C-alpha cells in the first residue's frame, strides 16, 4: 500500500506536470516553508499554513496531480500545463 506524499514546492506546476500527485504550493525556491521578509512571527505563521495545507493534502483522496494552495480555500483539481 502506498504512502501519501505531500510535495511542497515553489515550482508547483512543474511538480504536477512531472507526476507528483499531491502538490502544495511553497513560497519560493530559496525558502519553501515561509518567508523571512515577513518578520519572525508572520514568517512562522506562513510556514505553518503551508505545512497544515500539506498535511491536509495527505487526508484528501486524489486521482491525479492535484494542487493544494495554502493561499486559497479547499483543494483544486489540477489544471495543468497541457
Amino acid at each position, binding site marked *: 500500500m502506498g504512502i501519501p506524499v505531500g510535495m511542497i514546492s*515553489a*515550482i*508547483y*506546476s*512543474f511538480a504536477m*506536470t*512531472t507526476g507528483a500527485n499531491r502538490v502544495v*504550493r511553497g*513560497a*519560493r*525556491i*530559496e525558502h519553501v516553508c515561509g518567508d523571512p521578509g515577513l518578520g519572525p512571527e508572520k514568517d512562522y505563521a506562513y510556514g505553518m499554513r503551508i505545512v497544515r495545507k500539506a498535511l491536509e493534502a495527505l487526508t484528501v483522496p486524489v486521482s491525479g496531480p492535484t494542487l493544494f494552495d495554502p493561499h486559497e480555500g479547499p483543494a483544486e483539481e489540477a489544471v495543468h*500545463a*497541457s
Partner: protein
Amino acid sequence: MRLEVGSFPVRSISFGPATRWADGRLTVDKTAALAEVRRDPRVASADLHIAAPGDSVRIWPVRDVIEPRVKVEGPGQCYPGICGRDIATVGQGRTHRLAGMGVVEVSSVNWHDAGGDFVETYLDMSGPFAEMYPYHRLQLLGLVVEPDPALSDESRNDAVHRAALVVADHVARATAGLTPPEREVFELGPCDPALPRVVYIWGVHSPQAMSGSLTAFCTATYGLTQLTPPWILHPNEVIDGALTGPYRTAFAMSWTVANNPLFLDLYRRHGRDWNFLGVIVLRTEWTTQHEKQMIANQTAKTAKMLGAQGAVVTWDAGGNEFIEVVRTIQACERLGIKTVFLTSEDDATDGAPTMLEPLPEADAIVSTSFFKNVTLQVADPGPVSRVIGLERKVIHRGSGVGLHGGADSALPTAGPLPPPWRYDDHYGFGSQSCIE
C-alpha cells in the same frame, strides 16, 4: 538602424613595438596594453600571452572570450553598459571587428561567493577536446589578470572583466583609421509583406537568484545582470555587444554571443526567407512558479505584439530555468506563434525524458546532444606543453561553497584533466545531437 561592420581578419598575433594590424597580422605592444590595464588600481597583476591554433597549450581558468569590436562611427561604445562603459544605445554607424581572434579573460576570480556556480571552463588549442569548440581556430590573446584580493567579489569581477575589455579595445582601435578588407551592412530593411515574421527569443541566465544580488557579474544586457522583464533588442545592438557573455560554459562567452551562428543566419536571411523582427531577451532563473509563468506569458505577448508568426528559442542555463523557457514556448504556441527550440539534453538513462519538463507544445526541438561531458563520454584531454593561467586546476570542490563533500582536490593543469562538467552548445555551432 543601419550598421556597417568592417572585419579585419587576424591570422597571427605577435608582440611588437606598436599595436597595429596589417594584412591579417596583429602586432601587440604588450607594454602599452598592460599599462592601460594597470591604470585601474584594482588590478594587482596582469600579463599577456598568445595562443595559436594547433599549439599545445591549455588556458585556465577561462572566464570569458571577447571578440575585439570598436565603434568608429555612431553613438556609444561596443560592449556597452558593462564595467561602467557608455550606456548609449548602440547598433548604428560603423563598427570595426578583429575577426578570427579573441581576448581571453583568465583569472581565478569566481562569479560570486554564494556557492553553486563556479568558473569551470578551460580551453585547449589542439586535440579532440579542443575541436569540440570554435576557439581552437581562433588566434587568442590571453590576459592573465588578478585583482586586489581585499575587494568585494563584485569589485573583483568588475576589475578583471574591465581589464579584458581594455585589452580588447586596445587591439580593436588599431583598425580605427584603416579600410576594412571585408564589409557587411546590417539592417532590417523593408521586405515582402508575405514573408513570415520571426523573432529570436534568447534565454539568458541571471545570477540574481544564485548570488542573492542584483548586481552579481554574469552575462549582461547593457551591463544589467538582474532578472528583468522581456527586453527587446534590435539585432544590431547584439552585434555591437549589448548582450555579453559570460556564463559558465565555453559556449556562453561574449565571443559566442557576438558570433552566434543561429542569430547571424536569422539576420542575414532577413528579406529572403523571413522578416526578422528582432531579439527578445528572456532572463531566466525566477524562483516561483508565478514569476516563471508570468515572464513566459509576457515574453510570448511581446513577441505577439511585435507581430511574430514564428520564433526560435535558445537558452544558456540548466536546471529549473528550463521551466520558464519551455513555458515561453508553450505560451507562444498558444498565441499561434510557431516555435523551434534549440537545446541540449539531460541524462537518458532508463528511458527518462531528457527535457526537464516535457510539454507537448514544444514539438519542434533541435538537440545539441547531452550537455554533460560524462554522458558524451568525452575522453580526458591529455597533457600539454604550456599553460596560460593557473598551474593547478581544481577537480573536486570541497564543502562549504563547493560541489562535493570534503576538501578541494586539484591536478596539474598541464597534465591530463577531466573535461568540465558541461559541454552545452547553446547556439548550435556543432552537428552533435542525439537520436532515439
